[in-house]
């Protein structure tokens, strides 16, 4: 006799419930004891309540050997589907460590690839939660090939939809290149790590004893490698911050970033800047304070905060519009651009350009960092990325010179010549090819050497040079600066320039792609 509908539905529900348990209660508790949430708890925190639609719960692994054919691996260790975050769509894949350590097998890989294909087709961001022991060794070519398929898809989706990787456990081996091909990477303190080979392999092959955290923990990737965009205290905070990050991003490259009504006034005077920015050029200050005052209150979301701290990057809102902020910070290297800062900045600029996010650039840069070490670290190759990224960007580009804007650094922080739409300068701006010391040494070397009191002559010549060239009136006279403004007006002026340029249209030359310096 045929089963009744209620029997069929009951069986289906039982089966689904069993699969949703992943590796089972005991292994879930083990995850909790490490300070981690389970894959499904993570989905509940990331998505708006009741919005997650799962696909491929019934997907089966392909293992045939070593007794695996008799084993059930629920959902093949990765939960995939569509959910809403802040009311907006998002494609998700979430590895489940309770199912054979979230290892990446062929079906597991195919499920992830399908999600990225869907994201591209329907125009939604991808969020991937990584928590995996790496490739499932029993699946050999199946796993290896799917890594390739996955990398290929990340690249096809690059610049089409935002791709965010959350590292919420280990990510080992070739799989580490999946987040690396995405746009943003968040890590969780203590429980996350990323490396292309873990401690046992490292010891066996290069005879180095190490541990996961010192090889590729969140501190390493936040401070040394710059691989990570943010480190958060625990799973919940990481997921909250992912929701926040998504709130600044358009769903895809055909859209503009989401506007929200601001809580801040476009006419607010930024008089505090007079306290923050010293007029004495030798005194340092923290540019982060400037950023916090200028943009809509409480909206600045900084990325790569601990890496290359001489350059600040992040998203903010200006009168409700999302912008990308790029600002030199004199607290490190006096704001000079080194190879790490150029790397950090140029990647961010390219993301903003791909996703229609206007760029606001705050300059206080004494130049590219010079010296043997900087040259040997290939400042020429890396510094070129900044020039390239700004020149290539067709989104609105608005620059304000706060204090120093010297030589190549001035160009590399988006001058008029690199296509800035509007350039402002504060009265403290020093825009020049060469500073007074260097210039006077070249121009008046003989006069100074022959003088009875060389220091006096040098000081006089320097003062004269400053008066002639190193002030905002000189570049404004040559139309390199559109307006010289007071610190109190900075916010208002940036808003006016931004709103004027929001619908800017600029076409790039017809070509496959340029050859970006890397």
């Amino acid at each position: 006799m045929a089963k009744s509908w209620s029997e069929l539905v009951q069986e289906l529900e039982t089966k689904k419930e069993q699969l949703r348990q992943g590796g089972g209660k005991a292994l879930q508790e083990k995850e909790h004891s490490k300070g981690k949430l389970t894959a499904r708890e993570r989905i509940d925190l990331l998505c708006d309540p009741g919005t997650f639609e799962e696909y491929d719960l019934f997907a089966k692994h392909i293992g045939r050997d070593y007794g695996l054919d008799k084993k059930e691996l629920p959902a093949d260790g990765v939960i995939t589907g569509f959910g809403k975050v802040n009311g907006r769509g998002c494609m998700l894949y979430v590895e489940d460590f309770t199912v054979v350590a979230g290892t990446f097998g062929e079906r597991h890989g195919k499920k992830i690839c399908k999600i990225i294909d869907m994201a591209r087709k329907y125009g939604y961001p991808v969020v991937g939660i990584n928590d995996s022991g790496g490739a499932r060794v029993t699946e050999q070519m199946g796993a290896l090939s799917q890594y390739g398929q996955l990398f290929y898809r990340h690249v096809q989706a690059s610049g089409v939809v935002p791709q965010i990787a959350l590292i919420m456990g280990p990510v080992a081996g070739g799989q580490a290149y999946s987040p690396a091909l995405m746009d943003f990477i968040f890590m969780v303190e203590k429980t996350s790590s990323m490396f292309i080979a873990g401690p046992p392999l490292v010891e066996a092959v290069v005879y180095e004893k190490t541990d996961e955290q010192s090889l590729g923990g969140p501190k390493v990737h936040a401070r040394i490698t710059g691989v990570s965009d943010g480190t958060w205290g625990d799973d919940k905070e990481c997921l909250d911050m992912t929701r926040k990050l998504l709130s600044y991003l358009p769903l895809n490259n055909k859209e503009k970033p989401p506007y929200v009504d601001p809580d801040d006034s476009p006419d607010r005077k930024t008089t505090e800047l007079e306290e923050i920015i010293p007029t004495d050029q030798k005194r340092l200050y923290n540019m982060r304070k400037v950023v916090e005052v200028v943009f809509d209150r409480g909206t600045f979301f900084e990325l790569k905060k601990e890496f290359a701290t001489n350059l600040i990057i992040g998203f903010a809102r200006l009168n409700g519009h999302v912008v990308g902020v790029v600002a030199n910070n004199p607290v490190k290297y006096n704001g000079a651009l080194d190879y790490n800062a150029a790397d950090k900045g140029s990647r961010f600029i390219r993301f903003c350009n791909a996703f229609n996010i206007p760029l606001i650039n705050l300059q206080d840069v004494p130049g590219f960092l010079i010296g043997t070490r900087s040259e040997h670290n290939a400042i020429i190759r890396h510094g070129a990325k900044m020039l390239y990224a700004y020149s290539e960007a067709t989104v609105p580009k608005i620059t304000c010179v706060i204090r120093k804007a010297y030589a190549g650094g001035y160009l590399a922080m988006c001058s008029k010549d690199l296509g800035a739409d509007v350039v402002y300068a504060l009265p403290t701006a020093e825009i020049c090819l060469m500073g007074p010391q260097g210039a006077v040494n070249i121009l008046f070397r003989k006069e100074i050497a022959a003088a009875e009191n060389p220091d006096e002559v040098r000081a006089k010549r320097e003062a004269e040079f400053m008066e002639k060239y190193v002030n905002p009136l000189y570049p404004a006279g040559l139309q390199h600066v559109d307006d010289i403004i007071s610190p109190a007006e900075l916010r208002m002026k940036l808003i006016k320039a931004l709103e004027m340029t929001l619908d800017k249209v600029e076409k790039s030359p017809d070509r496959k792609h340029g050859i970006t310096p890397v």
Partner: protein
Amino acid sequence: MAEKVLAPMVGKIVKILVKPGDKVEEDQEIMVMESMKLESSIFAPCSGVIKEIKVSEGDRVEEDDELAVIE
């Protein structure tokens, strides 16, 4: 435990404000260096006693060069 004070960037030490044996507080200004057209202060990374000063005024330094030891 001794803590090393390292140069934050390439440049020149222009002023040394402490000598061996001096007690210092964390974040106290102990040297001034000049680099990339700016003067910047070097602060004590911890409280303690200056055990050794490894540079002289006028010395040029590389990033991460040892400037002093605090114990």
